[in-house]
């Protein structure tokens, strides 16, 4: 399951989705909005996305993780729109037969999300707002 959504993310639903009789571990990762960033007092975050491509990229991350580690199932859901302090902006849940694969795949997924998935966060802080992000993905030298 690889989606973006305007609604609060339901962790229980994702855990049910990855539950598998072959699995001996389920690892959830919850990215939450923090009330401070680089000395600014953050009031809220507002996420924008290119939704069709974001979901394709999330699915690509899931497929890459499945090639690298023996995982059973994976779900990634990213929230869009305004997200209040302390709420989940992204949840990744991975199941695997043994815990190492699920921990590694989860870590891989959150790092990849921050590099390539077309989702942008605007930080609303006391005194202003700013789009966050430094491009770490490299332009492809193809064609």
């Amino acid at each position, binding site marked *: 399951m690889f989606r973006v959504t305007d609604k609060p993310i339901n962790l229980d639903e994702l855990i049910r989705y990855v539950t598998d009789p072959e699995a001996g571990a389920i690892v959830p990762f919850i990215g939450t909005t923090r009330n401070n960033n680089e000395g600014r007092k953050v009031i809220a975050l507002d996420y*924008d996305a290119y939704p069709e*491509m974001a979901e394709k990229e999330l699915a690509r991350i899931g497929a890459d993780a499945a090639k690298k580690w023996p995982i059973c199932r994976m779900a990634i859901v990213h929230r869009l729109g305004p997200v209040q302090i302390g709420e989940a902006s*992204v949840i990744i849940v991975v199941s695997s037969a043994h815990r190492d694969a699920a921990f590694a795949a989860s870590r891989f997924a*959150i790092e990849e999300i921050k590099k390539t998935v077309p989702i*942008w*966060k605007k930080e609303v802080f006391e005194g202003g707002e700013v789009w966050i992000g*430094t*491009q770490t993905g490299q*332009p492809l*030298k193809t064609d």
Partner: protein
Amino acid sequence: MNVRVKFFAILRERTGVAAVSKEIEAGISVADLWRQLQKDYPKLDVPGIRLLYAVNQSYVGTDHRLNENDEVVFVPPVSGG
């Protein structure tokens, strides 16, 4: 020929539009299109911004040639998570 350009995040704020249809010469590259759009929307000249280019929902290189009805998105620095 025409291509469809969608703007997101800082670029949508700079242009004030979410999407435009743009008539271009056949065979120009995605980087050429970006330079043309900067003439249409001078505010797209964001100092120091590093863009990735996406055509039909996949990342492409700067010299990727455009085709009729392509969907083009200029991807400012991403910050999901």
